[in-house]
């Protein structure tokens, strides 16, 4: 149990802290500083959000946004954006040159798979049971193929479906999503051949 006398003395001791005051005149400017901060916040709030966004990072949290500061940051952001754009376009162009030495003009542009005449293209080189078989030719061209080495050659692609394929249905289409096989949802033993637009007829 706390001794009453020592408890009283402790409280008296704590009250001594009331004497710790800031230097004389400290409070003369205190409210001015508070109001300055409030005015700065109010003027900042009056600026549209998109302009505040561009000005972030270069302004003090208490100061108003100046026009010169705003546009210097705007120019800096623009320069960074343009640099990133140039780097991206250059990277894509370089990757395409690595993939296709003759340049993009040697091949027709990428296009979605189309269903051609089933008899015009040979069936798939191999099939596995009743499941899905994909031709031995390279898969459909995609952005990923741009990074293939120079030796890669593109060939006509065929895809054949044989037997009943529970994996293929209207609710479970081909996983690649690059082409559709009308009638595949019915299963059955028909073989479907899929030809890409750039394959010979």
């Amino acid at each position: 149990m706390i001794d009453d006398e020592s408890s009283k003395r402790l409280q008296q001791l704590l009250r001594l802290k009331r004497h710790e005051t800031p230097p004389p005149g400290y409070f003369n400017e205190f409210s001015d500083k508070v109001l300055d901060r409030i005015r700065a916040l109010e003027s900042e709030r009056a600026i549209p959000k998109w302009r505040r966004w561009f000005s972030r990072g270069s302004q003090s949290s208490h100061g108003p946004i100046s026009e010169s500061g705003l546009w210097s940051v705007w120019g800096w952001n623009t320069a960074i954006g343009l640099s990133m754009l140039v780097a991206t376009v250059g990277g894509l162009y370089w990757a395409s040159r690595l993939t296709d030495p003759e340049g993009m003009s040697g091949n027709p542009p990428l296009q979605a798979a189309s269903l051609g005449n089933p008899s015009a293209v040979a069936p798939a080189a191999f099939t596995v049971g009743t499941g899905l078989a994909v031709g031995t030719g390279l898969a459909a061209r995609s952005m990923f193929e741009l990074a293939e080495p120079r030796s890669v050659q593109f060939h006509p692609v065929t895809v054949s479906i044989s037997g009943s394929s529970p994996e293929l249905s209207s609710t479970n289409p081909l996983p690649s999503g690059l082409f559709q096989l009308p009638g595949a949802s019915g299963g059955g033993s028909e073989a479907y051949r899929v030809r890409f637009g750039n394959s010979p007829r």
Partner: protein
Amino acid sequence: MDPIAESTESTESTVLARPAPNAEEASEVGPCVRRAQAGDLAAYDQLVHQFQERIYGLCYHMTSHHEDANDLAQDTFVKAWQALKSFKGNSSFYTWIYRIAVNTCLNHLKLRRNRTTHLSLNDLDLQPENHPDLVALVSDKTPRREANLAELQRRLNEAILKLSDDHRSVVTLHDIQGLPHDQIAKILGVNPGTVRSRLFYAHQQLQGWLADWVQ
């Protein structure tokens, strides 16, 4: 008469420990609050003037750091201005702004917890330094006769800083700022019984740390 008692009683009106506003003071606050809620900065300036010393005192005693207290007191008034429209008058403005100040200080202390704390008391004016009664107390009433007032101040602040945030809050509000239990309960959003309990345990700890001075 006990010199320390006389010394403290004679300074009850010290600005940083000014008690809650009386009815007359509160009646002046109401119109200012309403004008400030309407966006009148001049009215808010009056409110800042009215409460700046108490809010600064609270922040200072919670942190024992002059610069931090300065920033926190300013932060409190800026936050209060931003939230002023949400002030419904369910509690007094005094209680409301004190709650903002306490929360601001507690958030600051949480962030500061891992930072090395040092006292910043050199630029504070410890008024009773030359008070004859206090000088007498320091030289005659303690087992360490060679100790001086600066030593007492250092020990006192170190002990208060060792308290948990909850305990320091109630000690600051009750023992230093002189607020009654029920008002502290409203400010902290706890029961008055919780306030008494926290005070009891805080006093126990402080008596252990300041045994040389209180026994």
